[in-house]
Protein backbone atom coordinates (compact mmCIF):
# COMPACT_ATOMS: atom_id res chain seq x y z
CA UNK A 1 0.00 0.00 0.00
CA UNK A 2 1.54 3.30 -1.10
CA UNK A 3 0.19 6.79 -0.62
CA UNK A 4 -1.31 6.79 -4.14
CA UNK A 5 -3.68 4.02 -3.11
CA UNK A 6 -5.21 6.20 -0.38
CA UNK A 7 -4.93 9.89 -1.30
CA UNK A 8 -7.61 11.08 1.17
CA UNK A 9 -5.05 10.80 3.99
CA UNK A 10 -3.89 14.34 3.32
CA UNK A 11 -7.36 15.87 3.26
CA UNK A 12 -8.58 14.51 6.59
CA UNK A 13 -7.61 16.51 9.66
CA UNK A 14 -6.43 19.36 7.44
CA UNK A 15 -7.75 21.99 9.87
CA UNK A 16 -5.95 20.35 12.80
CA UNK A 17 -2.67 20.33 10.90
CA UNK A 18 -2.97 23.98 9.87
CA UNK A 19 -3.85 24.87 13.45
CA UNK A 20 -0.71 23.04 14.64
CA UNK A 21 1.42 24.88 12.06
CA UNK A 22 -0.13 28.19 13.14
CA UNK A 23 0.62 27.53 16.82
CA UNK A 24 4.16 26.49 15.95
CA UNK A 25 4.61 29.70 13.93
CA UNK A 26 3.47 31.66 16.99
CA UNK A 27 6.02 29.77 19.12
CA UNK A 28 8.83 30.66 16.71
CA UNK A 29 7.66 34.29 16.55
CA UNK A 30 7.72 34.48 20.36
CA UNK A 31 11.19 32.94 20.44
CA UNK A 32 12.36 35.47 17.87
CA UNK A 33 10.85 38.31 19.91
CA UNK A 34 12.67 36.89 22.96
CA UNK A 35 15.93 36.86 20.97
CA UNK A 36 15.47 40.47 19.87
CA UNK A 37 14.52 41.62 23.39
CA UNK A 38 17.50 40.05 25.14
CA UNK A 39 20.30 40.29 22.57
Amino acid sequence: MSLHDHPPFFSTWRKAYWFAVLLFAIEVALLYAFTIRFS
Partner: protein
Amino acid sequence: MNNLDYIVLFATIIAIPLYGLWRTYNHPNLREYLKGDRSIRWGTIGLSVMATQAGPITFLSMPGQAYESGIGFIQNYFGQPFALIMVCAVFVPIYQRLKVYTAYEYLGQRFDKKTRFLGGFLFLIQRGIAGGITIYAPAIILSALLGWDLNLTIWLAGGFVILYTVVGGTKIVSLTQRYQISVILIGMALAFGIAVYRLPADLSFSDALGIAGRMGKLQAVDFSIDPSKRYTFWSGILGGFFLSLSYFGADQSQVQRYLAGNSLRASRIGLLFNALVKVPMQFLILLLGVMVFLFYQFEKPPIFFNQPSYQRAVASGHGPELAALQKQFDDLFEKKRVLLQSSPDTPNWSSDVQQLDAQSRAVRDETKKILEKAGANPKSKDSDYVFITFVLNHLPHGVVGLLVAVIFCATMSATSAVLNALGSTTAVDFYRPFRPGKEDHHYVVATRWLTLGWGMVTIAVASFCSLVENLIEAGNILASVFYGSILGLFLVALFLRHVRGSAVFFGAVLAQTMVIALFLTTNIGYLWYNLIGCTAVLLFASGLQATVFRNPEAASAK
Protein backbone atom coordinates in the same frame (compact mmCIF):
# COMPACT_ATOMS: atom_id res chain seq x y z
CA MET B 1 23.42 12.80 49.01
CA ASN B 2 22.02 12.01 52.47
CA ASN B 3 19.46 9.45 53.70
CA LEU B 4 16.51 11.64 52.70
CA ASP B 5 17.85 11.84 49.14
CA TYR B 6 18.27 8.06 48.96
CA ILE B 7 14.74 7.52 50.28
CA VAL B 8 13.29 9.90 47.66
CA LEU B 9 15.43 8.34 44.92
CA PHE B 10 14.58 4.69 45.62
CA ALA B 11 10.94 5.38 46.47
CA THR B 12 10.50 7.11 43.11
CA ILE B 13 12.31 4.67 40.88
CA ILE B 14 10.82 1.57 42.55
CA ALA B 15 7.25 2.77 43.18
CA ILE B 16 6.48 3.59 39.54
CA PRO B 17 7.39 0.14 38.11
CA LEU B 18 5.63 -1.61 41.04
CA TYR B 19 2.46 0.42 40.43
CA GLY B 20 2.75 -0.38 36.72
CA LEU B 21 3.08 -4.11 37.42
CA TRP B 22 0.09 -4.02 39.75
CA ARG B 23 -2.06 -2.20 37.20
CA THR B 24 -1.10 -4.24 34.16
CA TYR B 25 -0.31 -7.75 35.37
CA ASN B 26 -2.46 -10.28 33.50
CA HIS B 27 -2.05 -12.92 30.82
CA PRO B 28 -2.15 -10.87 27.64
CA ASN B 29 -2.52 -12.16 24.12
CA LEU B 30 0.02 -11.04 21.52
CA ARG B 31 -1.99 -8.00 20.46
CA GLU B 32 -2.34 -6.80 24.05
CA TYR B 33 1.32 -7.46 24.81
CA LEU B 34 2.57 -5.56 21.76
CA LYS B 35 -0.07 -2.84 21.41
CA GLY B 36 -1.76 -2.56 24.80
CA ASP B 37 -5.43 -3.35 25.43
CA ARG B 38 -6.94 -0.49 23.41
CA SER B 39 -7.57 1.53 26.57
CA ILE B 40 -4.66 3.95 26.14
CA ARG B 41 -5.85 7.52 25.52
CA TRP B 42 -4.17 10.41 23.76
CA GLY B 43 -2.77 11.97 26.94
CA THR B 44 -0.84 8.83 27.81
CA ILE B 45 0.25 8.44 24.18
CA GLY B 46 1.50 12.04 24.14
CA LEU B 47 3.46 11.68 27.39
CA SER B 48 4.76 8.27 26.34
CA VAL B 49 6.07 9.64 23.02
CA MET B 50 7.63 12.54 24.90
CA ALA B 51 9.25 10.25 27.50
CA THR B 52 10.66 7.94 24.80
CA GLN B 53 12.34 10.84 23.04
CA ALA B 54 13.57 12.66 26.15
CA GLY B 55 16.24 10.31 27.43
CA PRO B 56 18.71 11.03 30.22
CA ILE B 57 20.99 12.91 27.82
CA THR B 58 18.26 15.54 27.41
CA PHE B 59 18.22 16.34 31.10
CA LEU B 60 21.94 15.97 31.77
CA SER B 61 23.41 17.50 28.62
CA MET B 62 20.92 20.15 27.49
CA PRO B 63 21.37 22.51 30.47
CA GLY B 64 25.14 22.07 30.05
CA GLN B 65 24.80 22.82 26.34
CA ALA B 66 23.03 26.11 27.18
CA TYR B 67 25.66 26.85 29.84
CA GLU B 68 28.40 26.58 27.23
CA SER B 69 26.81 27.81 24.00
CA GLY B 70 23.45 29.42 24.79
CA ILE B 71 19.97 28.36 23.76
CA GLY B 72 20.47 28.29 19.95
CA PHE B 73 20.24 24.48 20.09
CA ILE B 74 16.45 24.90 20.33
CA GLN B 75 16.41 25.40 16.55
CA ASN B 76 17.32 21.73 16.05
CA TYR B 77 13.72 20.93 17.02
CA PHE B 78 12.09 23.28 14.51
CA GLY B 79 11.65 20.53 11.91
CA GLN B 80 9.88 18.23 14.38
CA PRO B 81 6.35 19.72 14.21
CA PHE B 82 6.30 19.35 10.41
CA ALA B 83 7.63 15.80 10.61
CA LEU B 84 4.98 14.89 13.20
CA ILE B 85 2.21 16.34 11.04
CA MET B 86 3.47 14.20 8.15
CA VAL B 87 3.57 11.14 10.41
CA CYS B 88 -0.03 11.86 11.50
CA ALA B 89 -1.20 12.38 7.92
CA VAL B 90 0.66 9.55 6.21
CA PHE B 91 2.32 6.95 8.43
CA VAL B 92 -0.23 6.48 11.25
CA PRO B 93 -3.29 5.84 9.05
CA ILE B 94 -1.38 3.26 6.98
CA TYR B 95 -0.05 1.44 10.04
CA GLN B 96 -3.51 1.48 11.66
CA ARG B 97 -5.29 0.37 8.49
CA LEU B 98 -2.92 -2.55 7.91
CA LYS B 99 -3.10 -3.46 11.62
CA VAL B 100 0.65 -3.99 11.76
CA TYR B 101 2.54 -4.62 15.00
CA THR B 102 5.79 -3.13 13.74
CA ALA B 103 6.74 -0.51 11.15
CA TYR B 104 8.80 -3.11 9.28
CA GLU B 105 5.75 -5.33 8.83
CA TYR B 106 4.46 -2.59 6.53
CA LEU B 107 7.63 -2.90 4.41
CA GLY B 108 6.88 -6.63 4.11
CA GLN B 109 3.33 -5.95 2.93
CA ARG B 110 4.38 -3.19 0.53
CA PHE B 111 7.49 -4.93 -0.85
CA ASP B 112 8.68 -8.36 0.23
CA LYS B 113 10.19 -10.35 3.10
CA LYS B 114 13.80 -9.42 2.45
CA THR B 115 13.05 -5.67 2.53
CA ARG B 116 11.15 -6.17 5.78
CA PHE B 117 14.15 -8.02 7.25
CA LEU B 118 16.52 -5.30 6.06
CA GLY B 119 14.46 -2.52 7.70
CA GLY B 120 14.14 -4.52 10.91
CA PHE B 121 17.82 -5.49 10.88
CA LEU B 122 19.04 -1.88 10.48
CA PHE B 123 16.74 -0.85 13.34
CA LEU B 124 17.92 -3.66 15.62
CA ILE B 125 21.62 -2.89 15.15
CA GLN B 126 21.20 0.83 15.66
CA ARG B 127 18.79 0.67 18.59
CA GLY B 128 20.53 -2.28 20.30
CA ILE B 129 23.74 -0.26 20.58
CA ALA B 130 21.97 3.05 21.27
CA GLY B 131 20.03 1.38 24.11
CA GLY B 132 23.33 0.49 25.78
CA ILE B 133 24.56 4.07 25.44
CA THR B 134 21.28 5.35 26.95
CA ILE B 135 22.01 3.32 30.09
CA TYR B 136 25.75 3.98 30.15
CA ALA B 137 25.69 7.78 29.66
CA PRO B 138 23.98 8.71 32.95
CA ALA B 139 25.65 5.80 34.78
CA ILE B 140 29.19 7.05 34.05
CA ILE B 141 28.31 10.60 35.14
CA LEU B 142 26.42 9.61 38.31
CA SER B 143 28.95 6.96 39.32
CA ALA B 144 31.82 9.43 38.83
CA LEU B 145 30.24 12.19 40.90
CA LEU B 146 28.57 10.07 43.58
CA GLY B 147 31.34 7.50 43.91
CA TRP B 148 29.03 4.61 43.06
CA ASP B 149 30.29 1.46 41.39
CA LEU B 150 29.77 1.83 37.62
CA ASN B 151 28.44 -1.68 37.00
CA LEU B 152 26.08 -1.41 39.97
CA THR B 153 24.73 1.87 38.58
CA ILE B 154 24.24 0.29 35.15
CA TRP B 155 22.32 -2.60 36.71
CA LEU B 156 20.29 -0.26 38.92
CA ALA B 157 19.13 1.68 35.88
CA GLY B 158 18.84 -1.32 33.55
CA GLY B 159 17.72 -4.16 35.85
CA PHE B 160 14.33 -2.74 36.85
CA VAL B 161 13.57 -1.77 33.29
CA ILE B 162 14.27 -5.23 31.92
CA LEU B 163 12.10 -6.82 34.62
CA TYR B 164 8.98 -4.73 34.17
CA THR B 165 9.22 -4.43 30.38
CA VAL B 166 9.49 -8.22 30.01
CA VAL B 167 6.48 -8.79 32.29
CA GLY B 168 4.15 -6.01 31.17
CA GLY B 169 4.95 -5.27 27.53
CA THR B 170 3.65 -2.17 25.79
CA LYS B 171 0.93 -1.30 28.31
CA ILE B 172 3.30 -1.09 31.27
CA VAL B 173 5.80 0.90 29.19
CA SER B 174 3.14 3.52 28.34
CA LEU B 175 1.76 3.59 31.89
CA THR B 176 5.12 3.93 33.67
CA GLN B 177 6.30 6.51 31.15
CA ARG B 178 3.31 8.69 32.05
CA TYR B 179 4.40 8.84 35.70
CA GLN B 180 8.12 8.96 34.94
CA ILE B 181 7.73 11.99 32.67
CA SER B 182 5.55 13.62 35.34
CA VAL B 183 8.36 13.16 37.90
CA ILE B 184 10.84 14.52 35.35
CA LEU B 185 8.78 17.65 34.63
CA ILE B 186 8.16 18.33 38.34
CA GLY B 187 11.87 17.84 39.12
CA MET B 188 13.05 20.12 36.32
CA ALA B 189 10.48 22.80 37.28
CA LEU B 190 11.75 22.68 40.89
CA ALA B 191 15.37 22.97 39.71
CA PHE B 192 14.41 25.95 37.54
CA GLY B 193 12.64 27.68 40.42
CA ILE B 194 15.55 27.11 42.83
CA ALA B 195 18.13 28.26 40.24
CA VAL B 196 16.20 31.54 39.82
CA TYR B 197 15.77 31.87 43.61
CA ARG B 198 19.52 31.38 44.19
CA LEU B 199 20.45 34.34 41.98
CA PRO B 200 21.57 37.49 43.87
CA ALA B 201 18.65 39.09 45.72
CA ASP B 202 19.14 42.47 44.06
CA LEU B 203 18.97 40.95 40.57
CA SER B 204 15.48 40.70 39.07
CA PHE B 205 14.60 37.87 36.67
CA SER B 206 14.40 40.35 33.81
CA ASP B 207 17.81 41.87 34.68
CA ALA B 208 19.26 38.35 34.89
CA LEU B 209 17.98 37.61 31.39
CA GLY B 210 19.44 40.92 30.25
CA ILE B 211 22.90 39.88 31.50
CA ALA B 212 22.60 36.45 29.87
CA GLY B 213 21.53 38.13 26.62
CA ARG B 214 24.50 40.49 26.64
CA MET B 215 26.78 37.51 27.23
CA GLY B 216 25.41 35.90 24.06
CA LYS B 217 23.40 33.09 25.71
CA LEU B 218 19.88 33.95 24.57
CA GLN B 219 19.97 33.92 20.79
CA ALA B 220 17.12 31.44 20.29
CA VAL B 221 16.48 32.10 16.59
CA ASP B 222 19.12 32.84 13.99
CA PHE B 223 17.97 33.32 10.38
CA SER B 224 21.55 33.48 9.10
CA ILE B 225 22.37 31.41 6.00
CA ASP B 226 26.06 31.18 6.95
CA PRO B 227 26.85 27.43 6.60
CA SER B 228 29.64 27.67 9.18
CA LYS B 229 27.06 28.41 11.90
CA ARG B 230 26.12 25.24 13.72
CA TYR B 231 22.53 26.02 14.71
CA THR B 232 20.32 28.17 12.49
CA PHE B 233 16.60 28.35 11.73
CA TRP B 234 17.18 26.79 8.30
CA SER B 235 19.41 23.90 9.40
CA GLY B 236 16.90 23.20 12.19
CA ILE B 237 13.93 23.12 9.83
CA LEU B 238 15.66 20.97 7.16
CA GLY B 239 17.91 18.70 9.26
CA GLY B 240 15.38 18.47 12.09
CA PHE B 241 12.62 17.49 9.67
CA PHE B 242 14.49 14.50 8.20
CA LEU B 243 15.81 13.33 11.56
CA SER B 244 12.37 13.60 13.20
CA LEU B 245 10.56 12.00 10.26
CA SER B 246 12.87 9.01 10.44
CA TYR B 247 12.62 8.81 14.22
CA PHE B 248 8.84 9.14 14.53
CA GLY B 249 7.83 7.43 11.31
CA ALA B 250 10.24 4.50 11.07
CA ASP B 251 11.73 3.85 14.50
CA GLN B 252 9.75 1.10 16.19
CA SER B 253 10.45 2.51 19.68
CA GLN B 254 8.22 5.47 18.72
CA VAL B 255 5.85 3.69 16.32
CA GLN B 256 4.93 1.23 19.09
CA ARG B 257 4.04 4.14 21.40
CA TYR B 258 1.42 5.67 19.13
CA LEU B 259 0.10 2.38 17.77
CA ALA B 260 -0.92 1.66 21.37
CA GLY B 261 -3.62 4.33 21.10
CA ASN B 262 -7.24 3.29 21.49
CA SER B 263 -8.04 4.94 18.14
CA LEU B 264 -6.49 6.68 15.15
CA ARG B 265 -7.65 9.94 16.71
CA ALA B 266 -5.83 9.20 20.01
CA SER B 267 -2.58 8.44 18.16
CA ARG B 268 -2.84 11.62 16.11
CA ILE B 269 -3.68 13.93 19.03
CA GLY B 270 -0.85 12.37 21.08
CA LEU B 271 1.61 13.13 18.28
CA LEU B 272 0.27 16.65 17.62
CA PHE B 273 0.57 17.31 21.36
CA ASN B 274 4.30 16.59 21.00
CA ALA B 275 4.50 18.78 17.90
CA LEU B 276 3.39 21.75 19.99
CA VAL B 277 4.93 20.99 23.37
CA LYS B 278 8.44 19.92 22.34
CA VAL B 279 9.82 23.37 21.47
CA PRO B 280 8.54 25.12 24.64
CA MET B 281 9.75 22.19 26.79
CA GLN B 282 13.24 22.23 25.29
CA PHE B 283 13.29 26.02 25.60
CA LEU B 284 12.65 25.79 29.34
CA ILE B 285 15.31 23.08 29.78
CA LEU B 286 17.83 25.24 27.89
CA LEU B 287 16.74 28.30 29.88
CA LEU B 288 17.40 26.29 33.05
CA GLY B 289 20.97 25.88 31.76
CA VAL B 290 21.17 29.66 31.30
CA MET B 291 19.97 30.13 34.90
CA VAL B 292 22.71 27.76 36.08
CA PHE B 293 25.17 29.78 33.97
CA LEU B 294 24.01 33.00 35.66
CA PHE B 295 24.21 31.37 39.08
CA TYR B 296 27.85 30.48 38.39
CA GLN B 297 28.60 34.08 37.42
CA PHE B 298 28.11 35.04 41.06
CA GLU B 299 29.08 31.76 42.79
CA LYS B 300 32.51 30.50 41.72
CA PRO B 301 32.20 27.31 39.61
CA PRO B 302 34.82 24.55 39.58
CA ILE B 303 37.39 25.10 36.83
CA PHE B 304 36.46 21.63 35.56
CA PHE B 305 33.05 20.20 36.43
CA ASN B 306 34.15 16.59 36.11
CA GLN B 307 36.06 16.71 39.38
CA PRO B 308 37.01 12.99 39.54
CA SER B 309 38.93 13.41 36.24
CA TYR B 310 40.51 16.61 37.53
CA GLN B 311 41.61 14.92 40.77
CA ARG B 312 43.13 12.03 38.79
CA ALA B 313 45.23 14.53 36.84
CA VAL B 314 46.34 16.21 40.09
CA ALA B 315 47.29 12.82 41.54
CA SER B 316 49.28 11.93 38.44
CA GLY B 317 51.73 14.79 39.00
CA HIS B 318 50.08 17.67 37.11
CA GLY B 319 49.12 19.51 40.30
CA PRO B 320 51.44 22.55 39.88
CA GLU B 321 50.29 23.26 36.29
CA LEU B 322 46.66 22.92 37.29
CA ALA B 323 47.14 25.11 40.37
CA ALA B 324 48.56 27.89 38.17
CA LEU B 325 45.55 27.68 35.88
CA GLN B 326 43.21 27.66 38.90
CA LYS B 327 44.82 30.92 40.07
CA GLN B 328 44.21 32.54 36.66
CA PHE B 329 40.64 31.24 36.65
CA ASP B 330 39.95 32.64 40.15
CA ASP B 331 41.33 36.07 39.21
CA LEU B 332 39.22 36.22 36.06
CA PHE B 333 36.12 35.14 38.01
CA GLU B 334 36.59 37.92 40.59
CA LYS B 335 37.08 40.57 37.89
CA LYS B 336 33.98 39.34 36.07
CA ARG B 337 31.88 39.26 39.23
CA VAL B 338 32.81 42.86 40.09
CA LEU B 339 31.98 43.94 36.56
CA LEU B 340 28.64 42.09 36.57
CA GLN B 341 27.65 43.86 39.79
CA SER B 342 28.35 47.26 38.23
CA SER B 343 25.82 49.05 36.05
CA PRO B 344 25.39 47.55 32.56
CA ASP B 345 25.26 51.13 31.24
CA THR B 346 28.99 51.51 31.93
CA PRO B 347 30.90 52.05 28.63
CA ASN B 348 32.17 48.77 27.06
CA TRP B 349 30.35 46.76 29.76
CA SER B 350 29.14 44.02 27.39
CA SER B 351 32.41 43.63 25.49
CA ASP B 352 34.45 43.58 28.73
CA VAL B 353 32.22 40.88 30.25
CA GLN B 354 32.35 38.81 27.06
CA GLN B 355 36.12 39.17 26.91
CA LEU B 356 36.54 37.97 30.51
CA ASP B 357 34.15 35.10 29.81
CA ALA B 358 36.18 34.10 26.75
CA GLN B 359 39.40 34.22 28.79
CA SER B 360 37.82 31.98 31.46
CA ARG B 361 36.83 29.51 28.76
CA ALA B 362 40.36 29.56 27.36
CA VAL B 363 41.71 28.68 30.82
CA ARG B 364 39.21 25.82 31.06
CA ASP B 365 40.33 24.59 27.63
CA GLU B 366 43.94 24.64 28.82
CA THR B 367 42.88 22.62 31.85
CA LYS B 368 41.23 20.05 29.60
CA LYS B 369 44.42 19.71 27.56
CA ILE B 370 46.38 18.96 30.73
CA LEU B 371 43.78 16.37 31.72
CA GLU B 372 44.18 14.75 28.30
CA LYS B 373 47.96 14.80 28.68
CA ALA B 374 47.58 13.18 32.11
CA GLY B 375 45.45 10.38 30.66
CA ALA B 376 42.47 11.51 32.74
CA ASN B 377 40.43 12.37 29.67
CA PRO B 378 36.73 11.96 30.53
CA LYS B 379 34.34 9.90 28.38
CA SER B 380 31.91 12.76 27.92
CA LYS B 381 32.08 16.52 27.57
CA ASP B 382 32.61 18.58 30.73
CA SER B 383 29.36 20.40 29.99
CA ASP B 384 27.52 17.11 30.71
CA TYR B 385 28.60 17.50 34.35
CA VAL B 386 27.44 21.11 34.77
CA PHE B 387 23.80 20.53 35.68
CA ILE B 388 24.32 17.53 37.95
CA THR B 389 27.15 19.38 39.76
CA PHE B 390 24.76 22.28 40.36
CA VAL B 391 22.12 19.84 41.64
CA LEU B 392 24.47 17.97 43.99
CA ASN B 393 26.19 21.06 45.40
CA HIS B 394 23.51 23.72 45.54
CA LEU B 395 20.03 22.17 45.84
CA PRO B 396 18.46 21.24 49.19
CA HIS B 397 18.39 17.62 50.35
CA GLY B 398 15.32 15.79 49.17
CA VAL B 399 15.32 17.79 45.94
CA VAL B 400 18.76 16.33 45.18
CA GLY B 401 17.28 12.83 45.51
CA LEU B 402 14.36 13.84 43.29
CA LEU B 403 16.69 15.23 40.59
CA VAL B 404 18.84 12.08 40.60
CA ALA B 405 15.55 10.15 40.35
CA VAL B 406 14.72 12.34 37.32
CA ILE B 407 17.87 11.07 35.59
CA PHE B 408 16.98 7.45 36.45
CA CYS B 409 13.34 7.96 35.35
CA ALA B 410 14.54 9.38 32.03
CA THR B 411 16.87 6.41 31.57
CA MET B 412 14.17 3.91 32.48
CA SER B 413 11.45 5.44 30.32
CA ALA B 414 13.66 5.69 27.22
CA THR B 415 15.17 2.23 27.75
CA SER B 416 11.83 0.50 28.36
CA ALA B 417 10.50 1.81 25.04
CA VAL B 418 13.64 0.64 23.25
CA LEU B 419 13.58 -2.85 24.83
CA ASN B 420 9.88 -3.20 24.10
CA ALA B 421 10.54 -2.28 20.45
CA LEU B 422 13.60 -4.51 20.09
CA GLY B 423 11.77 -7.53 21.52
CA SER B 424 8.67 -6.88 19.41
CA THR B 425 10.59 -6.39 16.17
CA THR B 426 12.67 -9.54 16.68
CA ALA B 427 9.57 -11.59 17.52
CA VAL B 428 7.22 -10.24 14.86
CA ASP B 429 9.61 -9.62 11.97
CA PHE B 430 12.21 -12.36 12.48
CA TYR B 431 10.83 -15.12 14.72
CA ARG B 432 7.19 -15.45 13.67
CA PRO B 433 7.86 -15.69 9.90
CA PHE B 434 10.05 -18.74 10.56
CA ARG B 435 7.74 -20.33 13.17
CA PRO B 436 4.25 -19.57 11.80
CA GLY B 437 0.97 -21.09 12.97
CA LYS B 438 1.76 -21.38 16.68
CA GLU B 439 -0.65 -20.46 19.48
CA ASP B 440 -0.85 -16.82 20.52
CA HIS B 441 0.60 -17.61 23.95
CA HIS B 442 3.68 -19.12 22.29
CA TYR B 443 4.50 -15.77 20.62
CA VAL B 444 3.93 -13.82 23.85
CA VAL B 445 6.41 -16.08 25.67
CA ALA B 446 8.85 -15.81 22.76
CA THR B 447 8.57 -11.99 22.77
CA ARG B 448 9.22 -11.94 26.52
CA TRP B 449 12.36 -14.07 26.13
CA LEU B 450 13.55 -11.94 23.23
CA THR B 451 12.96 -8.73 25.24
CA LEU B 452 14.96 -10.25 28.10
CA GLY B 453 17.71 -11.17 25.62
CA TRP B 454 17.84 -7.61 24.29
CA GLY B 455 17.96 -6.35 27.87
CA MET B 456 21.09 -8.41 28.41
CA VAL B 457 22.55 -7.10 25.14
CA THR B 458 22.00 -3.46 26.16
CA ILE B 459 23.56 -4.10 29.59
CA ALA B 460 26.53 -5.78 27.85
CA VAL B 461 26.87 -2.83 25.44
CA ALA B 462 26.69 -0.43 28.40
CA SER B 463 29.45 -2.40 30.15
CA PHE B 464 31.73 -2.06 27.09
CA CYS B 465 30.89 1.60 26.37
CA SER B 466 33.99 2.76 28.24
CA LEU B 467 35.92 1.84 25.09
CA VAL B 468 34.19 4.67 23.22
CA GLU B 469 35.86 8.08 23.40
CA ASN B 470 32.89 10.45 23.42
CA LEU B 471 29.82 8.36 24.07
CA ILE B 472 27.09 10.96 23.62
CA GLU B 473 28.53 12.00 20.27
CA ALA B 474 28.83 8.28 19.43
CA GLY B 475 25.09 7.80 19.99
CA ASN B 476 24.20 10.65 17.62
CA ILE B 477 26.65 9.42 14.97
CA LEU B 478 25.28 5.89 15.18
CA ALA B 479 21.69 7.08 14.72
CA SER B 480 22.62 9.33 11.79
CA VAL B 481 24.54 6.55 10.00
CA PHE B 482 21.50 4.23 9.97
CA TYR B 483 18.45 6.52 10.09
CA GLY B 484 18.85 7.86 6.53
CA SER B 485 18.59 4.43 4.91
CA ILE B 486 15.69 3.36 7.11
CA LEU B 487 13.75 6.52 6.28
CA GLY B 488 14.60 6.04 2.59
CA LEU B 489 12.94 2.59 2.65
CA PHE B 490 9.73 4.08 4.02
CA LEU B 491 9.68 7.08 1.67
CA VAL B 492 10.10 4.78 -1.35
CA ALA B 493 7.28 2.60 0.01
CA LEU B 494 4.96 5.56 0.43
CA PHE B 495 5.77 7.83 -2.50
CA LEU B 496 7.35 5.77 -5.31
CA ARG B 497 4.57 3.35 -6.24
CA HIS B 498 6.42 1.95 -9.28
CA VAL B 499 9.43 0.77 -7.23
CA ARG B 500 9.34 -2.92 -6.20
CA GLY B 501 11.01 -4.97 -3.50
CA SER B 502 14.28 -6.00 -5.15
CA ALA B 503 15.07 -2.48 -6.38
CA VAL B 504 14.49 -0.88 -2.98
CA PHE B 505 16.31 -3.70 -1.15
CA PHE B 506 19.49 -3.44 -3.20
CA GLY B 507 19.16 0.35 -3.35
CA ALA B 508 19.08 0.49 0.47
CA VAL B 509 22.01 -1.95 0.80
CA LEU B 510 24.03 0.19 -1.62
CA ALA B 511 23.05 3.41 0.17
CA GLN B 512 23.90 2.01 3.61
CA THR B 513 27.27 0.74 2.34
CA MET B 514 27.96 4.16 0.84
CA VAL B 515 27.10 5.97 4.09
CA ILE B 516 29.34 3.64 6.13
CA ALA B 517 32.17 4.16 3.59
CA LEU B 518 31.70 7.95 3.81
CA PHE B 519 31.72 7.75 7.60
CA LEU B 520 34.97 5.76 7.60
CA THR B 521 36.81 7.83 4.98
CA THR B 522 35.59 11.45 5.22
CA ASN B 523 34.92 14.14 7.81
CA ILE B 524 31.37 15.09 6.79
CA GLY B 525 29.26 16.44 9.66
CA TYR B 526 27.33 13.42 10.91
CA LEU B 527 23.86 15.04 10.69
CA TRP B 528 24.27 15.09 6.91
CA TYR B 529 24.29 11.27 6.83
CA ASN B 530 20.51 11.35 7.44
CA LEU B 531 19.91 13.33 4.28
CA ILE B 532 22.60 11.51 2.23
CA GLY B 533 21.36 8.03 3.20
CA CYS B 534 17.70 8.85 2.56
CA THR B 535 18.36 10.56 -0.79
CA ALA B 536 20.68 7.74 -1.88
CA VAL B 537 17.98 5.10 -1.22
CA LEU B 538 15.43 7.09 -3.24
CA LEU B 539 17.87 7.56 -6.15
CA PHE B 540 19.36 4.04 -6.15
CA ALA B 541 15.95 2.37 -5.83
CA SER B 542 14.50 4.46 -8.68
CA GLY B 543 17.59 3.87 -10.81
CA LEU B 544 17.62 0.11 -10.20
CA GLN B 545 13.88 -0.13 -10.89
CA ALA B 546 14.32 1.73 -14.18
CA THR B 547 17.27 -0.39 -15.30
CA VAL B 548 18.14 -3.72 -13.68
CA PHE B 549 14.65 -4.52 -12.36
CA ARG B 550 12.60 -2.92 -15.13
CA ASN B 551 10.76 -6.14 -15.92
CA PRO B 552 9.08 -7.42 -12.72
CA GLU B 553 8.99 -11.03 -13.98
CA ALA B 554 12.68 -10.91 -14.80
CA ALA B 555 13.36 -9.40 -11.41
CA SER B 556 11.46 -12.10 -9.57
CA ALA B 557 13.17 -14.78 -11.70
CA LYS B 558 16.51 -13.51 -10.42
